[in-house]
Structure formats: C-alpha cells, structure tokens
C-alpha cells in the first residue's frame, strides 16, 4: 500500500470517525450541553473521562533533545489533564523495548505511547496491546502495524519536500554536477524507509540528478562523517547531501567543512529543531533544515490521547493520525524561536 492510498483512506475516514466520536459522546452521556452551565458541565464531562488515567510512554531512548523534549511537554500536558505519565527508558536496546512493552501489556495502562525503533520489532505486541483494551499511540517512527493513532511527521512528505528543493538546487538548470548523496538513519526504521521513498519520488522528476550514495549511518554523527568524507573523495563535485536526522547530519556537515566544500555542497537535513539544528543553519553548516518541531508534536500526542480517551471507543475501532506540519529553516529566516532548548 503506498503512502497516498493510506493517507486518502485516513482522510476519508475522518468524517466517519468524527461522527462516531460525536455519537459516542452522546451515546455515553445523553445530557444536552446547553445553557449557562454548559461550560462547567462540559469540563466535568471531560474530567470524568480523563482524570486519573495512566499513560505509559516508551521512547526509543531518553537522553536526546528529541525525546527529552517530547517527554517534558507530555508531562506538562498530562498534569494539565489530571493524568499520570509513566516514562520507561529502554536505552536504545531492542530487547529491553520488547520487555518493557510486554510488562506494560500486563500492567494495563489506559494508553500506551510508543516510539518504534524499527517497523518490525513491536508489531505483534502492539496488536496484542490493542486487543487487551489499551489505546496505542505511535510517535514519529511507526511499526508495520498501525494502531489507534499516529502522531508524527509524514515522512513521505518530508522526503518529497527536500527532494523538490534538491531538484531546484542541483537539477538540470542549476549548473551543478547533479550528484546527490543520502545519509540514511537505520535501514529498518520507518523514518528512513519512507523518507528515502519520498525523496526518490521527487528526484525522479529530473533525470539529470544522480544519487551516488545511500549509505546508512545508524543515526550516528561519527559514521555520517566517515561516509560523507569518503563520498566527497569519490565525487569532489558533489552538489548536495541529505541526512534523515539533523543530529546525525551534523557529522556529515563537519566532513563537508573539513573538506573545505561548505560553499559547494548543500547540506540538507530534517529533524525536530533542537538548538544545535538552528545553530548549524545559522553557521552555514546546514544549507536548509526541514523542521517538524518536537514541542508541537508533544502537544499533538497528548491531544490525540485526550480525544481517544474521551471518545469511549474501543482501541481497535479508532484509526487516526496527525501529521506534523514541517517548515523550512534557512539562513534567511532562521530565528531562535524556531528551535528549542530542553528545559532543566
């Protein structure tokens, strides 16, 4: 199933879901919310659905600005809604992730929020969790099994947007060599797979563009540095390099700088917009950065949780998504408000 099919199906299902939610709300509580006291009654209704609920959250690992910021925002929103957020840190260890999800299924929180390391690892368990009555929200990196809600970037869109800019910068009329390199994250992660697909789709519009390297750097800046240094050696007339995560692409940018080619090679990255990402754009290390804003995603995640709980529907009856709106950060428009610092 292509991204377009999935998206169109989801979009078509939104009115149906909205109707269900409304109907569910009415079915659950047959009172009319009208008149002077209706605001207070609405508040009571929502509080009764949300207060005291437990939300379990497992990122791929804590310790990176991306996940630390999500966690911070999610904690604030959970407090506002009267819910408890239970944070589990697997330390980037796939075995630990499996164990944590298993223990969560046994604990039965009301909602489980998961940041998938790759598309296969947790697919079976997420299905089990939903069948056990736990709402499951997936964040930014999906599993092959889609659950109640997905909140994160539309990777195909991200890849396409960057690809279109690369075509303009390095394509037929740009006067450059047309050579482009890609630094992937992890070959089995949704973020990598789908960004690459979107990127290639956009590049296909201009046959003069030649993708000379698609190596993966396992989300590590040091590997990205080594790969890019070697690619630059092989293709000194490289026009652009696109990395699937700003934190990783920082390494590639350093390789370009060490080779003295910052003016020639356009370094693109997508990411959550932590402080270093904006600093890199400001310093000229990144040519353009596509930002999907972790703080905004944190809020969207908790909104999805809130609506899922309020709907009163069973986890397997909900299928929805919120796709983050990406925006460009370039040297011309870069501003300190576009990026975040993790508090504390």
């Amino acid at each position, binding site marked *: 199933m292509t991204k377009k099919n999935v998206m169109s199906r989801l979009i078509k299902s939104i009115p149906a879901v909205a109707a269900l939610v409304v109907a569910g709300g009415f079915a659950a509580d047959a009172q009319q919310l009208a008149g002077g006291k209706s605001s207070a009654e609405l508040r009571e209704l929502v509080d009764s659905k949300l207060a005291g609920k437990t939300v379990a959250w497992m990122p791929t690992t804590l*310790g990176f600005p991306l996940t630390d910021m999500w966690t911070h925002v999610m904690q604030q929103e959970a407090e506002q809604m009267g819910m408890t957020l239970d944070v589990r840190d697997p330390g980037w260890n796939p075995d630990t992730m499996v164990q944590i999800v298993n223990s969560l299924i046994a604990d039965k929180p009301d909602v489980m929020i998961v940041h998938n390391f790759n598309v296969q690892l947790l697919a079976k368990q997420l299905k089990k969790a939903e069948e056990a009555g736990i709402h499951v929200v997936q964040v930014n990196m999906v599993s092959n099994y889609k659950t109640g809600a997905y909140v994160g970037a539309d990777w195909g869109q991200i890849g396409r947007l960057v690809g279109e800019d690369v075509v303009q910068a390095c394509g037929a009329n740009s006067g450059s060599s047309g050579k482009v390199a890609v630094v992937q994250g992890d070959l089995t992660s949704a973020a990598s797979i789908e960004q690459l697909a979107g990127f290639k789709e956009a590049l296909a519009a201009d046959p003069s563009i030649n993708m000379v390297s698609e190596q993966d750097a*396992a989300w*590590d800046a040091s590997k990205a540095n080594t790969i890019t240094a070697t690619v630059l050696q092989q293709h000194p007339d490289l026009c652009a390099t696109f990395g699937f995560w700003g934190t990783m692409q920082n390494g590639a940018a350093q390789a370009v700088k060490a080779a003295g080619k910052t003016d020639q090679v356009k370094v693109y990255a997508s990411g959550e917009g932590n402080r270093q990402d904006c600093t890199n754009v400001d310093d000229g290390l990144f040519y353009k950065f596509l930002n999907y804003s972790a703080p905004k995603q944190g809020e969207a995640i908790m909104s999805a949780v809130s609506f899922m709980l309020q709907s009163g529907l069973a986890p397997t009856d909900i299928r929805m998504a919120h796709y983050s709106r990406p925006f460009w950060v370039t040297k011309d428009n870069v501003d300190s408000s576009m990026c975040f610092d993790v508090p504390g």
Partner: protein
Amino acid sequence: MTEASGPQSFMRSKDSLLSQEVIVMLVTLFLCVIFAVTLPGFATLGNLLTMSNSVAILGMLSLGMGVVVIGRGLDLSQITAMAVSAAIVCQMIGSGYPILVALLAGLAVALAIGIANGLIIAFIEIPALFTTLASGLLVYGIARITVLDGFISYIPNGNDAFLYLGQGRLFGIPFPVIVFIILAVLVHFMLSRTSVGRFIYAHGDNADTARLSGIPVRPLTVFEYCVSAVIGFLAGLVMAAMNASMNTQVINSTLIFDVILVVVLGGISLVGGRGSVWSVVVGAALIGTLLNGMIIMNLDSNLQSIIKGLVLLCAILLDNFLHPRNEETARQGD
C-alpha cells in the same frame, strides 16, 4: 625478511617467515590491488588520506589496547574512558571553562578509570575481562547521572583551534593521522627501547616468572591500564574535534570489538607477550582498506557487519593456529 614482532625474538624460534603481521600485510595489499582495479577513485592520494583519516581513531585506540593485551590483559572499558572523558571536555568548554581546565579534567577522569582498573585487577585479582566490563558500565552510568547532559555534548562555535585537531591538515595530511603517527612512534619507543616495555612483554609472557624475577608486576598492571585509558582520552579528543561533538552512545556500539579486531588481526595475540606497534598499524590498514572499499561499493551496513565478523573469525582462527594452547599460553577467557 624478518618479521617485526617485538624484542622477544629469542623466544620465537618456531616462527617462520609467514608471521601473522606478514599475512595480514599481504591480504591488505591484495585487497588494495583488487579495489584499485575495480573501484574508480580508490587508488588516489586523496582517497588514501581519507581512508587513513577514518581509521586513525581506531588505530589510536588499538595502540592503547595493544599495550594492555601484550601484558595479557583486556580493557573493555576503553571506549567508556574515551567517550566520558571527551564528553566532559566538550561540556566544560560549552559551559565556559577555559580549554586547558577542561582538558585537565578529562585527563583526570581517564587516569582515574585506568588506575581503578589496574588496582582492582592487580590487587584484588579479579580477571581483567570482568573488571573492565563492570567498570565501563559503572563509569558510564555515573557520568550520565551526574555530569553529562544527555548523550551528545557539543563543542560550541568559536573553538576552531580545538577543532583543528580533528579537521585540520598539515602538509596535506589530516591531523588525526598525524596524531596517530606520533602516538605510534611514542608507543613503539616505549615498548621496544625502554625497560618498562620489556617488563610489559615479560608480564604478558609469564606473569609469575616476571614477578619472581623482580619485576613490579602490580604497579606495572596499573601503568598498562592507565596507558590504555589515556590513549582512549586522546582518541576521544580527536573524535570530538572531528565531529564538533561527542556522542557517548558510542559506548554501546561495536567499536570495542573493532578495536580488539584490529589488535588480534594484526598479530598481538590474546596470549600476551607477543606483537608490537607494527601489528596494530597492519591491522588498522586492513580494516581501513576494507571499510573504505565497502563504503565506495555502497554496501549496506548489515552486509558490512557480516564481512567484518567473518574477518574477525578468520583472525582468531589464525591466532589459534599460530599460537596453539598449552600450559604456557593460557589467555584471556580461559
């Protein structure tokens, strides 16, 4: 052709012309020829320098590990020492401390790790494998909780003098390569021309005999692990300068195995008492060539891991074949 395998030549009467170093050198040359013929752009000076640059850090770490392994030890905490001390330096520079203070702090941390390892292994006599495994985890955990803000510590802008260490060039040669060459010369000098070096070989060859001969084996052990940790610190500085940041997640990566691969591959047997700096250089050259070739061929990382694993397996088998087990040659892991 006589092989360069350390000053213990009088003990190696069974060695033929084909020592491990020579075999690895031949394999490297063979690979270079194949890559030069099949891969465009491989056989250029620029690529050679890029290749050396990417393997310089691995080479430095292997020098430190080599010293420990020659003493029949093993230092699994070397990457922790590298990453934590370098991350502390980056973070202190970022917090506004003068560079010298930050460097001294990092060096102190590395020395502390080395001394702790050495003391536990020498005086409490816990095997090196377990000690360094545990100390690595402990130090990493403590550092993450107390000192470090998250996994990645960035070097802020305006520290170009420091970044020169990783990104600069002298006479066209990248600085990491120069640091590696200097370090290799120093370690070679220590191992082959000083009495401490001789003691390390004796320690590795037969620790009991060394002790009975009057060699201060326990302080020597502490010294060996300090060398490994401090060299780890230097390698960490170069890595931080190359990437303008230090990612402590490298501790969880396979880098430690790559280091042991280079050491064992090049001919520094896990048996101890054998090998030299030349072994490390030769091992690093093979791994560097392999890595460079695989990147140019655009092989995906899983395939690269498989190939590296096979090469490690062959190296250990070769090590076993050339140095068969007997009472004298108990080694790490036995």
